[in-house]
């Protein structure tokens, strides 16, 4: 996505604040995680739009969840969701987080993220490109705005 276009969309969405993002790997392969990191580094550099990765869910507006949910992660995902202050948006990044992808039929896999917590935006791909991840975050901004205005419950 062109930077100007992205800025435009962020402006259009009218989100006045910087967006803070918490990243949670619930059992994927790391592919999505390194693409999220790549989105933060100079080629894509989302920080110039005020999108920032934070180290605690309590500070976050957006949860980026990657990976299918494993058994030991099941409770922890719920807990982290509860710790994130409202209004919040959850983005499932990648095929695993959206549908469980290649991981099924196992004693330790509990399924895609929406089996556990509500998901607002799905970003397909295995892994999705950094551009797609940024696009997903922008969609989340729009949703968050609507939540803030009280249009959606």
């Amino acid at each position, binding site marked *: 996505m062109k930077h100007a276009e992205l800025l435009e969309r962020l402006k259009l969405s009218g989100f006045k604040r910087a967006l803070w993002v918490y*990243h*949670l*790997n*619930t*059992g*994927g*392969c*790391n*592919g*999505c*995680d*390194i*693409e999220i*990191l*790549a989105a933060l*580094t*100079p*080629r894509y550099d989302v920080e110039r739009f005020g999108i920032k990765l934070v*180290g*605690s*869910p309590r500070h976050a507006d957006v949860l980026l969840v990657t*990976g*299918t949910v*494993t058994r*030991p*992660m099941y409770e*922890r*995902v719920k*807990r*982290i969701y509860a*710790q994130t202050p409202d209004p919040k948006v959850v983005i499932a990044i990648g095929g*695993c987080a959206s549908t469980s*992808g*290649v*991981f*099924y*039929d*196992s*004693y*330790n*896999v509990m399924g895609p993220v929406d089996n556990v917590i509500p998901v607002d935006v799905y970003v397909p791909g*295995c*892994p999705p*490109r950094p551009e797609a991840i940024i696009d997903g975050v922008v969609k989340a901004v729009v949703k968050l705005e609507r939540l803030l205005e009280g249009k959606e419950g």
Partner: protein
Amino acid sequence: MKKAKLEPEGMAGEKRAGKTCPACFEVPIGPIHPALKEGIRFTFWVEGERIRAVDIRPGFMHRGIEFMGTKRNLVQLIYLAERICGICSVSHPLALVQAVEQAAGIEVPPRAQYIRVIIGELERIHSHLLWAGVAAHELGFDTLLHYVWKVREPVLDLLEDVTGNRINYAIPIYGGVRRDIPPEKYPKLKDALRYYRSLVDDFVSFFLRDPSIEARTRGVGPLSPEEADSLCAVGPTARASGLRKDLRQDWPYFAYPDLEVKALTPEDMGLEVRGDVYDRIVVRLLEVVQSIELIERCLEEMPEGEITSFPKVAALMAHLKKAEGEGIGRHEAPRGEVIHYIRLEADREAPVVWKVKAPTYSNFMPWFPMFEDQEIADIPIVAASIDPCICCMERVHIVRGDREEVIWKEELLRLSWEKTKRVASRVAPHASLGRKG
């Protein structure tokens, strides 16, 4: 160098802490990974700032891949193997295809063997650069993290150009590879390799000649050659301790016999081997240069010809269905040895046994001596120094943010960064962090 404590009972941190250090404090960290995004729980017993004992509990990322694998057919298995780990995403399929080819008696055309080497080495460049960035981050040099990740993008572009994807390339198939590298693409590859060559001097001055990095990594997290040997360390971790252990040299496969690879240790840069974090940086930088050379040679020497012995997937499936036997495939991934063992039975599409071992699995035990007597502020860099890939090791996965966390990732990193500042003002009071080579 400290004496190796290798009595087996010394390995269970809990027991030892009670025995040797009744006054220690217990510091659980995790299940976060202080270096990457993956979950693993460390428990340290500390006396003042010094770590006296450690216990490590992985398991949060376990997906049960081998279990799933015994319910899928062999072609599906490639996709699954690829998703064991996204960073070394071609290493597992490369080991798997070798195992199946051995079990089913499949020949591979020479051109395909060269293409496999090229993809494997491109992956090594991308993975080592990724690690260098993470290591810089752990030390508090975020400028360097961003610089390294920026120069890492061209190799991803290259991988995308030749395979179609930045990560998870889906290149190996039983009997060959799925995509050729046509000669029109050689110039692009060669340009990119030239670009990386021109960066080597910068890397040396940023990482190896920087007084603060040297002060933070020299003598930190040491692993003696005896420890590395008896604990079965693999990959750059073993080589940094002076063991010339490299599958491409000791157990050549694909086109590696033609290329005559040599295992690299810090000695190859004229340094004395000390087995610390600094040496692990040295080895990885040397290997980036080695990978560039190997790809250049492959492009020169690659023969013409077929890229697979089964152009039709149906023929391949029919052959695999009849196959019976067992095979072992090994590959030197960026982090060390990957081994896959497979057993096939005729008229059964799924394998009877599939066992996977990732490099971090072998480098798990060497973590124990590395942590001993280190400072708390050094935990992130020591943990990162083996380039851990937890989801690989566990073939499963987990997260951070658990109640049990006493020290959060951020706090631990802050300790590490503060130490760098302290050290930097001591070693180079007025120096900026720029180049000084």
